């Protein structure tokens, strides 16, 4: 512990470590893509299938494992993540000897998670976050977590690092993609829904776990899992809070992806309005594209445009949540919290998230173009996913079913989501009608032949 005090906060504190580890990964990805000097891609399983589904785009497992590229990428992923996280752990003053074998053990479990979640049906409907939680929970609640594995269970460290890497994919240029129409649908509605759910959760349902309320509110109103991860970290949510918010969001997304377009079709809403409604209310981006596609090409584009704006809200919402919790929730008295205290409490990785986003939006994109940014983000996305899979596996390994059930607060949490989502749909529907029906403003025209 004494050793840790000699290390400056920037190098020794987890929050700052997430920033510089994230930036090292981003820098390496930029150099690799822009210079083409080396391949920095992380390993990923392609979709695989058994039985009839094999007729789809699934790649046989034997083919995947038979390729040298797969093993090369696997080695790159393990080495990069193990070296960077071990360095962080060393600077935190913990034992490297204990951490390295534990990390490798955790990585093997994470590899199993990614393998399972690449199966055709599981991959199409449930995110790896779900499987990471489930497999972790199964291990911890059956055979138990061995002591040697415990030093690698560092949920927050992995989440914060993943978020800094994710920051690079949040592009500010998206804000004007659908003009004031998109801004009105995505940005007017989102904070109102968050505030409504905060009021409902804390004042009406009297849920005393405020980080859980804000994490669930963000997942409902912004974009599901990614928003839950960001606001959960910003509010200091516990591992169970994140598990609950994400599980609820994932399951309801499956239902909304199928039933929302059906209902929109049944009531005869236009493609533009239906797509915008889907973009503003369905949580996962993949589900947004599919639900929009079910209505037609114009709906698909409208849905994607609105969702693109929602994706850039993640950082801002996380920032405001961090400030709110530092100034209002974590304070011990009625006294006004000073700037110094706010800074002390403020989660520093949010700064890393914003800087990464600013660099991508105002430096890399204008200089090298959108295609290069997309190529860099393809590489970074896998590192982000690995960091999050390590985090969610850690959550599962560190949770028991009883605690999880207790945190559901007798079902209040579920009803907070259901009522919040209904309010979200109603308000988005009103915004869509107001802006896109032609009653108040001109109906915008989307050029689908671009």
């Amino acid at each position: 512990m004494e050793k840790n005090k000699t290390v400056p906060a920037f190098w020794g504190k987890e929050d700052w470590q997430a920033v510089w580890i994230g930036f090292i990964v981003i820098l390496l990805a930029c150099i690799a893509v822009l210079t083409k000097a080396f391949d920095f891609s992380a390993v990923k399983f392609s979709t695989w299938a058994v039985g009839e589904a094999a007729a789809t785009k699934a790649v046989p497992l034997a083919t995947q494992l038979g390729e040298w590229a797969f093993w090369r990428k696997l080695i790159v992923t393990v080495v990069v993540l193990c070296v960077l996280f071990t360095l962080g752990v060393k600077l935190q003053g913990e034992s490297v000897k204990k951490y390295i074998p534990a990390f490798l053990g955790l990585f093997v479990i994470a590899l199993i998670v990614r393998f399972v979640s690449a199966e055709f049906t599981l991959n199409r409907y449930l995110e790896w976050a779900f499987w990471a939680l489930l497999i972790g929970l199964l291990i911890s609640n059956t055979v138990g977590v061995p002591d040697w594995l415990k030093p690698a269970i560092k949920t927050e460290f992995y989440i914060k690092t993943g978020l800094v890497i994710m920051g690079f994919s949040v592009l500010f240029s998206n804000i004007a993609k659908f003009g004031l129409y998109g801004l009105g649908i995505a940005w007017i509605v989102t904070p109102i829904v968050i505030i409504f759910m905060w009021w409902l959760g804390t004042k009406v349902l009297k849920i005393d776990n405020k980080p859980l309320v804000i994490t669930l509110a963000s997942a409902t109103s912004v974009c599901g899992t990614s928003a839950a991860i960001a606001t959960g970290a910003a509010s200091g949510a516990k591992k169970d809070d994140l598990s609950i918010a994400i599980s609820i969001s994932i399951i309801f997304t499956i239902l909304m992806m199928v039933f929302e377009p059906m209902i929109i079709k049944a009531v005869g809403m236009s493609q533009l309005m239906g797509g915008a409604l889907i973009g503003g209310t369905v949580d996962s981006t993949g589900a947004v594209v599919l639900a929009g596609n079910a209505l037609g090409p114009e709906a698909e584009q409208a849905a994607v445009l609105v969702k693109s704006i929602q994706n850039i809200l993640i950082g801002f919402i996380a920032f405001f949540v961090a400030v709110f919790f530092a100034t209002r929730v974590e304070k011990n008295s009625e006294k006004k919290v000073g700037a110094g205290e706010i800074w002390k409490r403020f989660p520093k990785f949010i700064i890393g998230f914003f800087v990464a986003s600013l660099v991508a939006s105002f430096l890399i994109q204008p200089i090298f173009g959108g295609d290069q940014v997309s190529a860099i983000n393809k590489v970074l996305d896998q590192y982000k996913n690995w960091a999050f899979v390590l985090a969610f596996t850690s959550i599962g390994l560190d949770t028991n079913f009883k605690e999880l059930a207790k945190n559901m607060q007798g079902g209040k949490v579920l009803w907070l989501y259901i009522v919040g989502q209904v309010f979200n749909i109603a308000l988005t529907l009103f915004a869509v009608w107001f802006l896109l029906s032609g009653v108040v403003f001109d109906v915008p025209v989307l050029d689908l032949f671009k």
Partner: protein
Amino acid sequence: MGKSKEKAFKVVTILVVVAILVCALWIMGNHLGLVNGYDFGAGAYYYADIPGFENIEKEGVYRTKVPYWAHVVLFLCWGWLMYRLWVWIDKRK
């Protein structure tokens, strides 16, 4: 809440959970909502997880005459206003 109301609330909640899970499993079992040409599903939670997203999201599909900076100003103003509203609501008992 009285004991009988509490019990009813629990029963309704359990029924809703079961109905939702059965419905989700039914959707998954029947591969509903998927699109043949797309190699992803609801499991792709973030845009960067979607293979070929750059081909799905057509650039410049909508052109606006409102300058970019106006969007940023409105974005920040609304964000600040909503933050103040949140603090105000939270202060009320």
